[in-house]
């Protein structure tokens, strides 16, 4: 909020800042995520991400130099500490982002976007979610689209990230009236309608944390 230094190169430190902000966010909103998951799932989404992000922050205490190495560590840590649906999904997100980022020690806007997009493709490859299935995809996809068009329109990284965070929040809210077609919420049939998807809510936190880290 009105930060003085504007980030234009996403270094390992900035990425760690993002992860750290996300860890704080899932701690702060863990009960809320679990409450959403109580309504249409199994009441563990908050606990899952708290466990995962605590493990991530421990794993990146002395971060490697390359962004790809850092993100790979994040992905592997999530895969091996979270479990459930969100573990492989968020894990795959970071693993694919790691591959896209490679040896680079810092990412510019287009490189960051490419990484995020690769990550989202990973989620789709694992979970086969489509738009409107009421999953994290419904927050992430519009967020990356907003990120992309902001950059295309010449926005700063910080502004693009803020636009993405806003779109993610809108995407999260848009899951409320949806009928779930993926994950446990789909077992509820019509009863899934009227509740925000917990994964979409955590994804909105992920994008919000990114915007914070880039501001």
């Amino acid at each position, binding site marked *: 909020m009105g930060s003085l230094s504007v980030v234009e190169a996403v270094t390992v430190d900035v990425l760690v800042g993002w992860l750290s902000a996300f860890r704080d966010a899932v701690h702060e909103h863990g009960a809320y995520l679990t409450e959403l998951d*109580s*309504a249409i799932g*199994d009441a563990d989404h908050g*606990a899952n991400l708290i466990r995962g992000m605590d493990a991530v922050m421990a794993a990146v205490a002395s971060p490697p130099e390359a962004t790809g190495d850092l993100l790979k560590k994040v992905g592997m840590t999530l*895969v091996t500490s979270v479990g*459930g649906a969100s573990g*492989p999904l968020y894990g795959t997100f970071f693993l694919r982002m790691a591959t896209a980022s490679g040896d680079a020690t810092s990412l510019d806007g287009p490189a960051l976007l490419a990484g995020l997009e690769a990550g989202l493709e990973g989620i789709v490859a694992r979970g086969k979610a489509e738009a409107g299935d009421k999953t994290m995809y419904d927050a992430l996809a519009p967020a990356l689209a907003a990120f992309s068009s902001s950059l295309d329109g010449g926005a700063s990284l910080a502004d693009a990230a803020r636009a993405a965070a806003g779109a993610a929040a809108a995407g999260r809210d848009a899951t409320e009236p949806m009928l779930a077609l993926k994950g446990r919420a*789909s*077992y509820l*049939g019509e009863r899934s309608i009227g509740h925000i998807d917990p994964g979409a809510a955590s994804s909105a936190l992920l994008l919000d944390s990114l915007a914070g880290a880039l501001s």
Partner: protein
Amino acid sequence: MKKLINSPEAVLADALKGIDAAHPDLRVDHQHRVIYRATPKADGKVALISGGGSGHEPLHGGFVGPGMLDAACCGEVFTSPTPDQMQEATSVVDRGAGVLHIVKNYTGDVMNFEMAGEMAAADSGVRVETVVTDDDVAVQDSTWTAGRRGVGVTVLLEKIVGAAAEEGRDLDAVLDLAKRVNGQGRSMGMALTSCTVPAAGKPTFDLPEDQMEMGVGIHGEPGRRRVPLAGAAEIAEQLVDPILGDLDFTGSPSIVMLNGMGGTPLIELYLMYGEVATLLEKAGVQVARTLVGNYITSLDMAGASVTVLKADDELIRLWDAPVETAGLRWGV
């Protein structure tokens, strides 16, 4: 929240300590959270691994032992285990004949086991096959792409397929049998109360005194619909009808399980089974074997589920074969 625990974070680690202390014929890998037989099976036999979130005990750790599983991978409460656990267990239990992964159909379980299979094949060259159970008739299959949940049939499958592996059948045969058992089993569950996930600290849903949930799974999730509380006979009908409507069970011997959700005492489970047995008899289903008790639970949820498996002489024979686990034990 009233639970016999030290802290929500320590539930799994602490429970594994107790399992370890209580069962000298099990070996617990506390780091990977895997429960093994203390004495591995003989070389050349197919090994069976199952696993999933915790909170369903005795499933799966209580079914590790001669005649059933070789290892169970324990996830956090209601959270599937991670691929590294399954990968570790896979390489430990392999006796050179390959490993069958028994996975209940939940997005998380399927994805984690999938990743484990990829990792195990890449790392150690162990041949892994997977059977995904999906017997819950509460979920309308076609419409929902996540498919039906895997519930009660998993218990029966682990017993029957475990016996087949013990006989020395190869991985293809074991996989075929597993798929056949899954394909011939149907389940339906109901809840009188929600359960409380330790980390959540309060009941997953509120259920008024005069209502119950029909068509629940095993994760404390709300069911397909909330209906007025009814007597045992009517509840039995609501459980049995959709099962019989989904598959024709006449003309074959059946194996029937009346399962408790964890918070329902045995006297009620027996009472429910009496009602279910009456309905099955009326419908011409011949019950050859019966199991009544808590076998696949949902923490402290009050409720019950019915599983009917259309069997045949071979399946009955495998069912009757010796089994020596904490949760099922006979013929030894």
